[in-house]
């Protein structure tokens, strides 16, 4: 493929232009966000549907647009994207950061379980947190941990 067909956002695997790719990604993302936002608003906040719909839709729009873009884009048409990602050092950094996050997770969950089970006998202290929020919090912490680990490895070895 010639260098001229490359662009910052790439082109579609099916051969579509960058503009078409972005249009489908953003449009599709918005459609999915509105659909899921409507569902979440009706089921979760029936008394405040417009506000909940707006909140959920805005939150879902870009993540789903990014997901569609990832599924449709031809990587080789993105400017500066290496053909062989697995052989690039960034892939090695990501692997090592992932392994470090896994170790952190084991340590965090192990220590947390131990301390909390100890506290259970000593202190009658329970937190009521929605499970979805707890999962989101743990996921956010793991992602932040990954980002920090990756940047540290990059700074040390880059």
């Amino acid at each position: 493929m010639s260098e001229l067909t490359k662009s910052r956002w790439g082109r579609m695997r099916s051969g579509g232009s960058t503009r078409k790719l972005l249009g489908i990604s953003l449009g599709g993302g918005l459609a999915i966000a509105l659909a899921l936002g409507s569902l979440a608003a009706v089921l979760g906040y029936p008394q405040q549907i417009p506000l909940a719909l707006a909140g959920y839709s805005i939150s879902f729009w870009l993540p789903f647009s990014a997901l569609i873009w990832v599924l449709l884009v031809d990587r080789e048409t993105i400017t500066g994207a290496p053909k062989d990602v697995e052989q690039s050092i960034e892939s090695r950094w990501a692997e090592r950061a992932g392994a470090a996050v896994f170790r952190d997770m084991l340590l965090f969950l192990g220590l947390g379980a131990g301390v909390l089970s100890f506290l259970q006998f000593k202190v009658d202290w329970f937190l009521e947190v929605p499970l979805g929020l707890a999962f989101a919090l743990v996921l956010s912490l793991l992602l932040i941990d990954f980002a920090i680990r990756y940047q540290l490895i990059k700074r040390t070895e880059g």
Partner: protein
Amino acid sequence: MENSLPEHRKLRGFSQQQLADELGVSRQTVISLEKGRYDPSLPLAFRIAKLFGCSIEDLFTPGED
């Protein structure tokens, strides 16, 4: 591991970005290879050797342990 990648690259007039494009890897990978901070996989080492028309031993030598 020590390597003579910078010498071979400059001898052929490649920039780091051009070499990265030829190998299909990122420019950062070439930079780290040249600094000896990244040991390439065997397939990548073979690709580099083939590109420069030499053997892997001509490019990479074991460092002092």
